[in-house]
């Protein structure tokens, strides 16, 4: 979050004139951004546990990771919301055809293989810094 990109800010110089300055970030802003990614991480972690426990399908995991809810995924894939909901169930997901898997995989930026056989422990992001990648 800090130091990798610089954004432009407006500040006054010693004469009181506005100048444009590049900034690598500011603590409260970075705190808020990290908080947002922490929320994502928590949901991802919880969904991962649900998948391992057989309560949810890998689809649910990758949706959490990519911050998709059912409505958004339906918009991207043209798959009806009620069908997506049913695919969150592990048994239903296992019976999915390759075409549908491809559509999901493309929308969620994962490989079909990764979707079918995932999630692996490496799919769970590290806290804060890399959540969402």
């Amino acid at each position, binding site marked *: 979050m800090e130091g990798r990109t610089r954004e432009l*800010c407006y500040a006054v110089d010693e004469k009181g004139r506005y100048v444009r300055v590049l900034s690598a970030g500011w603590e409260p802003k970075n705190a*808020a*951004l990290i908080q947002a990614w922490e929320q994502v991480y928590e949901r991802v972690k919880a969904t991962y546990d649900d998948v391992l426990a057989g309560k949810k399908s890998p689809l649910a995991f990758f949706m959490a990771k990519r911050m998709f809810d059912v409505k958004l995924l339906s918009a*991207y894939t043209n798959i009806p919301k009620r069908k997506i909901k049913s695919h969150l169930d592990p048994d239903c997901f296992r019976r999915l055809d390759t075409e549908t898997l491809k559509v999901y995989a493309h929308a969620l930026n994962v490989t079909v293989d990764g979707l079918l056989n995932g999630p692996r422990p490496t799919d769970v992001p590290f806290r804060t810094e890399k959540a969402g990648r």
Partner: protein
Amino acid sequence: MTIDFKHSQSAHCENGVTSSLLRHHGLDISEAMAFGIGSGLFFAYLPFVKYEGIPTTSFRPLPGRIFKRTAARLRIRMVRKKFRNKEASMRALDETLGRGIPVGLQVGVFHLTYFPAPYRFHFNAHNLVVYGKENGQYLISDPVMEQPESLTYDELMRVRFARGLFEPRGHMYYLRDAPGHIDVASAIIKGIRKTCRDMLTIPIPLFGVKGIRYISRKMSKWPSKLGAKRAALYLGQLIRMQEEIGTGGAGFRFIYAAFLQEAAEALNNGRLEELSQSMTECGDRWRDFAAMAGRIIKNRASEQESYPALSAILSEIADRECRIFSELKDAVL
């Protein structure tokens, strides 16, 4: 095909695109000037518009308004299009580039490959300029990036048709002929008047100065109504809207102060210079607010730092902005 277009970095994407397209047409309008003429400064608390389940707060008007208003007030014709068909939108882009016209696009940032990863949420109100196409790569001037970037056909099409809140639907816009002479002074005055109206006279308690007071009152009750964790999420969202999405700092208040400084010179109006300073002080208070809120989020707040204390700062900010915009209205009579 590459248009001779100068990339420059800005604080805010829509201001940046507006300014760079105007400059390309020979009109030296800075980001701050475009922001002020376009009446970009605002405040709205929208409890019914939820992003990730949390109410949104906006410090600017709806996407596209700044560009539209700036063009209209400078009497420059613009063309705007949205598309149902993705390929058609790309053909239209190519055809316009082929005529030597750089094109503004509204895009979603989630699939924007060059965008820094920590900022790639499902956010769809981002703006950039396409100024060329070489070897299958579109040349991109994204105002929030330091350098020009590039995207493939597929990558660009994907971000033009991102889904979710404020879907772009291939939205593209560009300027037509710029008139020989533009009346910047008149545009500045119109822009200022609109901002004063927006901040002072909208009869709904969620908008303008009333909106700041509204959220100030609500905020002191957030911990008891929402619980500590959710209250902190609400705060985080507010800070992000204020500081993250390229506001130049303090929810655009610093950019607006920079605009007032330029306007003071353009209109030869010393009062505007004074009000610029008042706006800077107000921006500093927004920053103080965010700094305290940031500490509360990280559980590093001192005893005096609390939701009621935050609420008090917002209430003071509301008073300041009420005074500033009332005086500003009078200053351009």
